[in-house]
Each structure stands twice: as C-alpha cells, then as structure tokens.
C-alpha cells in the first residue's frame, strides 16, 4: 500500500493542472482521426523537458489514457475511430448515435472506459512491485533475452508479415548501434555528421510516428471532410450509470479481457476491443442486438481498450521492456529525465513511479468527467481539415525534434526516418518493432557485452546465454512467438494489409 503515500503529489496545484491539461488535450487529440495515442504522446515529450520527471510523466500518462478514451467520440459521432483501439466501438456506438442516443452512447463509453481503466491501473499498482522484486533476480543474460523478446514479440504480433516484422526489429537494433561504441569508443556507421552522437530516441520516435501520418494526410489530397457530426441530445447520466451496472457481464468481460491482453507485449487496444466485443456477444442472451446500437457492445469494447492501458506498462516499469509503442515513447520520456525504469525504479525513484501511477488512476476519473462535457467540442475538432492537421503536425515534429538538443541534426534524422518509415509501411513494414529495436538495442547490447565478459571469465558464452531455467524459458517464448506467427501466416489467418485488417474487423 506504499502508493497511498504518494497521492498528495498528484494533488499539488501544478501537478493537478498538468493532469487536467493532459486529460482534456488527450481527449481532443484522441477524437481526431489520424492522431494516434502514440503519436500524440511522442509530440508531447518536448513539452516535458522543463518539467520534473514525475510532472512530465503525469502529462504523458494523462494524454495516453485519455487519447484512448477520446477516440470513442469520433467513433460514435462521426463513425471514424479516433484510434485503432476504438474500431469495435464504432459498430454499436455510431448506430446508437444515429438513433438519437449519441449522449447515452458517449456516457456509456466514458463510464465503461473509467471502470476498465481504474481496474487496469489497480492491476498495475499491485502487480508491478511483485514483478519488480522478482526482476531483481535477472542477470545480464536474462535482460539480453528479455530485450530480444520485446523486439521479436512485437515484430511477430504487430506486423502483417513475420519476416518483415522481424526485419523492422533488426533495422531498429542496427540504428541503435550508430554512433560511438560505449566501451571502446570506436565509431560505428557514422556516415553523416548528424549521426556522430548516435540516433537520439525522441526525434526518432517523433519522426517514426508523426511523419508517416503527415504523408498519409498528403496522400488524401484535397478531400473535404465528409463525415457529419451527429447532434448530441442531453440524456440523464443516472440512466447510463444504471445501464452500466445492469450490463455488468459485458463490463466484466471487457475489463478482464483488456487487462489480460494489456499484459501481453505487442497486443494493443485494437485487439483488446475486438476480442472483448466478440466474447461479450458470445456470452450475451441478446447477441442478435449486437451491431444494431446495443449498449453491451460499447461497454465491452471501451472497458477493454482502457483496461489494457495500465497492464501494458507493467513490463516497462518492472523490466524496462516497453510492451507497446506507446510504452516505448513513455520510456523515452523517462530517459530524458535520467530515470531508467526497471527492478530498482521503486527503490530509487518511488516518488516518480508512484506519482505517475497514481496520476493515471485519478486521470481515469477526470477523463470520465470531462469526456462527457467536451465530447461535442472534441467531435468538432475532429473535423479540422487534414491540410491544417498535416501542416501543424509537421511543424510540431520539427520544433519538437529540434528542442531536444537544439540540434538540426536531430531534425534531419527525424525527417529521414519518418519519410523512410512511410514508404516501408506501404510495403508491410511496421514502425512498432523498429521503435522497440531502437529503444531496446542499447539494453540488449550492454547486457550482451556484460554477459560475454562474465561468460568468458566463467562458463563460456554458450552455457551462460543458453542454459538455466530463465534463459531457456525466455528463449522458448521468443521461439514460440515466432513459430506461432509463422503458423498463423501459413494458415493464411493473418491479414495481408492493415487495410484488410480494418475491413475484416469492421465486418465482424
């Protein structure tokens, strides 16, 4: 119950103000189609430079939580999911809004998000210290395999092709080696002066997540925003609260599904929402009503996609292995403040860790309250023309990258990586494994070198890295995740493209 002692930090005027800004801003950004939670958090990082670590994380954590929930606004009122996590919400949410029950759909969505989100953060609170204690037993070889596991599991699960996912992970691992070697001081792959200091993670994250979105907006050309915002008629909140309790089965299925899926690295809110929707439909006596504006569909999907937020941070805070692209961005936010998450985070920086986690708990409640009030405004913002959005994101990306070290080199790296990523994505590569490779590369290399030194002095590299129950278990998980993905691909169950995935999910 150590976390209770740090609630005061969240309620200082400045921290609480940041929490409010992050929550409201996140809701609006989340409602904007094309601005993913990961990109929103990446663009926010430069604004945390002058803040203390805990305050910076409060802002980023609040934005992460509320962008996921905010995506439901455009899903319900515009039939455009704000983020992939809100695809399942569109199925019943928009139909309900078309029937004149938009306010009720939004209320159910935010209430379910809050319940799922609070449960997920409680899971984070109680699981993290236990796992952190367990993680103390990890040596260099285990941390090396964990880093490799982080890259391979996202490479195999997040991409439409296993080989291309792993290849993207390798590209990320290679990019992480650019610069001066830490031990020998040797120059590695410095083919331009901008790379002499290596690739800074923050500009790279901004480029990899923001620039492909900007170019995608360019590719839509001079298109008029065609979606109409459905007018929201007032609806008593008490009815929605009673409905949530009445639909406790869907709420439970959504919350538990989201929490479990959140713990698995690489499986995001999109899967959580769709699986919860599907399971809730299977167990419902009113399954025929799903897709016709049924409240259970919204409750299951939204409770699931917010329940996964807290658990998705468990691997990051305990093992310093980000389990998702957004967690990787949060890791970047921690690193710029000189804080390295892992087993000793709760011993060395308990105020940062617990204030961040507690703020996410409070953020869920604020998100619910403000979500209900600013949904209409958020839906209007979602109609901002793509030309304005693309130009604004480009500007923020350039200024944000430059402000990391006041270096034009970072801006060049951001633009080059971002443009390259757009074209790679067109051929089935995914940014997530590349980012994970870039972030986990230094961890993998440092532990590999350290492990090699220990191995040379003791048992030999083969025995040190490939024997022992933990090494074998981690290695087996790496191989199993690759084998599973290959098997699924051979059975042709994987989607060929992300567009195919969206169309198949919409047909659910």
């Amino acid at each position, binding site marked *: 119950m150590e976390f209770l002692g740090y609630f005061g930090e969240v309620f200082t005027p400045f921290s609480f103000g940041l929490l409010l800004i992050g929550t409201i801003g996140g809701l609006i950004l989340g409602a904007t189609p094309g601005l993913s939670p990961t990109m929103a958090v990446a663009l926010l990082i*430069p*604004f945390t*430079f002058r803040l203390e670590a805990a305050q910076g994380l409060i802002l980023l954590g609040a934005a992460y939580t509320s962008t996921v929930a905010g995506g439901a606004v455009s899903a319900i009122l515009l039939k455009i999911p704000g983020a992939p996590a809100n695809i399942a919400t569109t199925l019943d949410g928009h139909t309900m809004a078309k029937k004149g029950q938009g306010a009720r759909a939004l209320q159910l969505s935010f209430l379910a998000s809050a319940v799922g989100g609070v449960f997920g953060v409680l899971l984070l609170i109680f699981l993290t210290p236990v796992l952190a204690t367990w993680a103390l037993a990890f040596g260099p070889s285990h941390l090396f395999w964990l880093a490799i596991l982080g890259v391979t599991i996202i490479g195999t699960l997040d991409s439409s092709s296993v080989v291309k996912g792993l290849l993207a992970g390798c590209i990320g691992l290679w990019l992480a080696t650019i610069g001066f070697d830490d031990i020998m001081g040797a120059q590695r792959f410095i083919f331009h002066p901008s790379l002499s200091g290596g690739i800074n993670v923050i500009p790279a994250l901004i480029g990899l997540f923001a620039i492909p979105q900007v170019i995608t907006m360019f590719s839509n050309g001079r298109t008029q925003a065609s979606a109409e915002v459905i007018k929201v008629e007032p609806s008593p909140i008490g009815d929605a609260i009673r409905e949530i309790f009445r639909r406790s089965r869907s709420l439970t299925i959504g919350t538990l599904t989201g929490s479990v899926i959140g713990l698995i690295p690489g499986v995001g809110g999109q899967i959580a929402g769709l699986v919860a929707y599907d399971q809730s439909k299977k167990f419902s006596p009113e399954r025929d009503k799903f897709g016709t504006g049924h409240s259970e569909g919204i409750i299951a999907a939204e409770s699931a996609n917010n329940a996964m937020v807290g658990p998705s941070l468990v691997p990051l805070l305990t093992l310093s292995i980000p389990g998702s692209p957004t967690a990787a961005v949060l890791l970047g936010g921690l690193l710029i403040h000189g804080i390295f998450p892992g087993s000793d985070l709760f011993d060395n920086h308990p105020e940062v860790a617990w204030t961040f986690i507690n703020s996410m708990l409070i953020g869920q409640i604020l998100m619910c309250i403000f979500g209900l009030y600013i949904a209409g405004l958020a839906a209007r913002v979602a109609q901002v023309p793509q030309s304005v959005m693309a*130009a604004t994101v480009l*500007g923020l990306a*350039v200024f944000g990258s430059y402000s990391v070290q006041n270096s034009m080199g970072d801006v060049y790296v951001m633009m080059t990586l971002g443009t390259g990523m757009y074209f790679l994505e*067109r*051929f089935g590569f995914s940014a997530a494994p590349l980012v994970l490779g870039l972030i986990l590369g230094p961890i*993998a290399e440092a532990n590999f070198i350290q492990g090699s030194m220990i191995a040379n002095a003791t048992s030999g590299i083969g025995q040190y890295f490939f024997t022992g129950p933990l090494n074998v278990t981690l290695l087996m998980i790496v191989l199993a995740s690759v084998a599973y993905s290959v098997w699924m691909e051979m059975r042709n169950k994987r989607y060929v493209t992300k567009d195919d995935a969206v169309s198949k999910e919409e047909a659910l």
Partner: protein
Amino acid sequence: MNNLPRSQHIVASGLVAAVGVWVCFVSYTQEPAAAFLFPRIISTVFAVLALWTFGKALMGKSKVGNGLTADSMKKILPGLIVAIVFVFWAAKGLGFYTASTIVFFTLLSLYDPAPHNEVRTWIKRIVISAGYLVVMYGLFAMLLSVFTPREILF
C-alpha cells in the same frame, strides 16, 4: 494487396536488402572487432531476413502491403517536397518561425479543399497561418524557451 506490381516489391525489398548487406559488410570489415561484435550478430540476421524478403519479391511471393499508386504519389509529392525543403534548407536558412509559417501556408494552400478562386478563402488561410505562427512562437519561444536559428525577418 496481392495485385500490387511485383516490380514495386522488388525495388522496395531490394533497397532494404542493399542496406542490410552494406551494414553486414561494414560490421565485418571495421575494427576494433570487439566494438562490432553486437552489430555483426544483428547485421547478419538483418541481411539474411532482407535477402529472404528480396528473394520472395523476385519470385513474386511478396503479398503484404498496399504499395504506391501513381495517383497517391501525385498527391504526396508536392507536400513531401515542401516538407523536405523546409527541414533540410528553409528552417536553417530562413529561420524556424518564418519558414514554418510559409510552409504551413503553402501546405494549407496545396491541400485545402476550399476553392482557390475566392478572396475569402485566401484571407482565411492567411489568418489561420498567422494564428499558427502565434501559437508556435508562444509554445516554443516563450513557454519552452527554445533557442532556434536566427530569423531572416526578425
């Protein structure tokens, strides 16, 4: 898409394979060897996977991805050129705020669906661009105190 021209897959995977082979070559030829131990392992896997992908593309078995169409490239190119000129030349040459405002206005003019032959829409674009300049200056110069290269106009 399955009907994506094979040549697109060949070019894309060929470029990735070329980078993979180059990285592998550099890793194994540079000294000191100890500093390149980890890159050698990574680059070997990188090159193998990249060549595998290239081989699949050559055999016409690559099927993942939406590829690029001439229509989408026509839409992307003007914006992409403006963005590249902004990043690699204008930001430093003209100053961040001047360049980004000009770029904002240019992109808005290129991609705004509103008609180009009405004075009212041009005034709207100028006002939005001015608002953008004020917001960016407020955020980065005043709030975050970021020191950007000297502006050409102020």
